[in-house]
């Protein structure tokens, strides 16, 4: 028997049958303004995803997360592993942006920008529709026995799905190894790069499985964002909503007692997660606005005003204006600017060079006939795109004892993206030594003029031991 569209209820998830098996949803196509703008948005996002690794900025791809060399190139800005702390701003920034946008526009991310929706609705389902036909035809094909037509349609569909999943997986890898490297690896045997090969293979399979079969289950069962919804939205948040005051009770178009909803169930047919929006806001709703387009089309036909289903807040549905400025959004906006200011300050404080001082292995200090000696290693990293020379000296001001240094006399020149580890020896004449003291090592980088100052301790024996003889 052919599976009919199921009647959605608030008691259970439409896409899971009572025995736990999957109910495959075949949403009908809705045409309209939102569909058009969502498609434009989706194509733009897919374009950005594909193009970013190809656009060179300052000699590197616009985004190149070089995990092998531990260098992260972001729009001409290069970060090293030492700058990992900046990740705090990225992670907290992304989370906060989600909060901020959700306070105003609800789950706009899900319906318009999430890769799950973008690839599913605008790539995979389009191909499915192209090969298998519209929703009723797809349902028919599901129920049909395995004849030649079904076989070649399914073969063609799944082959295309696998190819596209492979492309998405390869582009993803390109963000981490760059396009030329990817191209080269693709021409070499899998055994040369097992890790990358297995990754792309597994990613292709996971992407294929996700967009072919798993689909809305990810949004409904796995993705935490839908669960946050109940905490993130309030009475003034815009959601895809049914105007129950205007629409209820649903009835025939000629029924004078009925509301504006003619109970055509078009909104249910187009829903990709299988809900009935007229039952109110539900966690399955990904805010894709397909039901808005569907309802507007019907309202035009029955010559009633559009917007029976529309982007509206709960307050708006009760007949009041949505309050955009409210304590929560004022607080969020304040926090947003604070976050931008702190992140901007942090980013500008990142130097093109890194320098670290460590004591050399062995004894902490050495005593010779004439001197007390401390040995250090200074690691310098050049993240700039030009050769950089590092000069190292001890800051003399504030020191009460004479100090002699050697190492780095002529500076150490480091090529771009390289690092060096040089020896730096500090000595104090034996008779002048008055005990351990802290001092400052100053590392100067040219060109750029960056100065890095490290405080270290000059260690030695108890000075009385030296003066005893």
């Amino acid at each position, binding site marked *: 028997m052919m599976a009919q569209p199921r009647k959605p209820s608030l008691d259970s998830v439409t896409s899971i049958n009572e025995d*736990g098996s999957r109910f495959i949803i075949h949403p009908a196509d809705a045409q309209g303004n939102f569909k058009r703008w969502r498609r434009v948005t989706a194509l733009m996002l897919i374009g950005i995803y594909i193009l970013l690794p190809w656009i060179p900025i300052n000699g590197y791809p616009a985004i190149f997360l070089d995990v092998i060399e531990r260098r992260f190139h972001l729009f001409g800005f290069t970060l090293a592993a030492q700058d990992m702390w900046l990740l705090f701003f990225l992670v907290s920034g992304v989370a906060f942006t989600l909060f901020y946008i959700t306070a105003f526009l609800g789950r706009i991310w899900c319906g318009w920008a999430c890769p799950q929706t973008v690839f599913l609705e605008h790539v995979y389902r389009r191909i499915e529709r192209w090969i298998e036909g519209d929703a009723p035809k797809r349902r028919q094909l599901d129920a049909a026995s395995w004849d030649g037509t079904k076989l070649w349609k399914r073969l063609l569909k799944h082959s295309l799905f696998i190819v596209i999943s492979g492309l998405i997986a390869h582009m993803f890898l390109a963000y981490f190894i760059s396009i030329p490297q990817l191209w080269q690896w693709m021409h070499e045997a899998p055994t040369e790069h097992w890790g990358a090969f297995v990754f792309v293979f597994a990613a292709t399979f996971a992407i294929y499985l996700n967009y072919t079969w798993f689909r809305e289950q990810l949004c409904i069962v796995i993705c935490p964002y839908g669960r946050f919804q109940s905490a993130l939205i309030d009475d003034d948040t815009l959601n895809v909503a049914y105007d129950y005051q205007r629409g209820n009770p649903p009835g025939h178009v000629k029924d004078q007692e009925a509301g504006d909803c003619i109970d055509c169930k078009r909104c249910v047919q187009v829903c990709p997660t299988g809900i009935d929006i007229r039952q109110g806001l539900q966690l399955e709703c990904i805010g894709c606005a397909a039901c808005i387009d569907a309802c507007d089309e019907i309202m035009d036909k029955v010559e009633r005003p559009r917007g029976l289903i529309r982007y509206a807040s709960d307050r708006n549905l009760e007949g009041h204006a949505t309050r955009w400025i409210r304590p929560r959004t004022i607080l969020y906006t304040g926090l947003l600017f604070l976050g931008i200011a702190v992140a901007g300050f942090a980013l500008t404080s990142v130097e093109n060079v890194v320098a670290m001082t460590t004591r050399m292995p062995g004894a902490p200090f050495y005593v010779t006939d004439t001197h007390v000696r401390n040995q250090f290693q200074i690691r310098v990293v050049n993240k700039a795109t030009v050769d950089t020379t590092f000069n190292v000296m001890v800051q003399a001001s504030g020191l009460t004892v004479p100090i002699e240094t*050697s190492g780095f006399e002529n500076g150490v020149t480091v090529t771009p993206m390289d690092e060096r580890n040089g020896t730096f020896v500090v000595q104090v004449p034996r008779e002048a030594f008055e005990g351990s003291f802290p001092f400052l090592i100053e590392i100067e980088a040219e060109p750029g003029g960056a100065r890095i100052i490290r405080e270290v301790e000059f260690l030695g024996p108890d000075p009385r031991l030296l003066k005893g003889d």
Partner: protein
Amino acid sequence: MSDPNKKYDDKLRPHVYDGIQEYDNHLPNWWLWSFYGAIIFSVIYWFSFYDAEIMKSDTDIVDAQMAEVEEIRLAAIGDINSDALWQMSRNPGFVESGQVIYMEKCAACHGPDLKAGGGLAGVNLVDAEWIWGNQPMSIYDVVTNGSPDKTKGMQSWVAELGPKKVSQVVAYVLSYHTEEGMAEATTLNTPVGL
């Protein structure tokens, strides 16, 4: 099944927390199967990791990799003898690489002209007196393992430089000497590395 309200009542669980009740819907089968799969996997994984020794433990992997490092290091040392070091010291490419390393790591104590002195901590490397042996292999040993006298501050460099760079820097020092001249130089202690 004929009475939908009865079914509804059955599904609603009796417990209430803060006014929230829950339905007893069937879990998605894919969810159940991934859960069962994880249980089966954990048993197989546990068995193969801890009991059957089919999979290597982290310790085994590290040990194997360290053995590989040691093997490469030993192989490199095997090729090195006093004659080979003399040959390297006459090779401009080798000496040039050695000079770069010397200036970065060694000049701080031994001086950029290898003569030390002037308050520098190291020993003179171009005079006719060797503390730990007048053979190239003795110099190689001191650079690799550090000075046998741990109070002097010449550290072991093999961890940082690796055998190849050690031989390059020794070749640079030897480029200031001749085989005959070295043979006549005095040695203060029992030679090392021979």
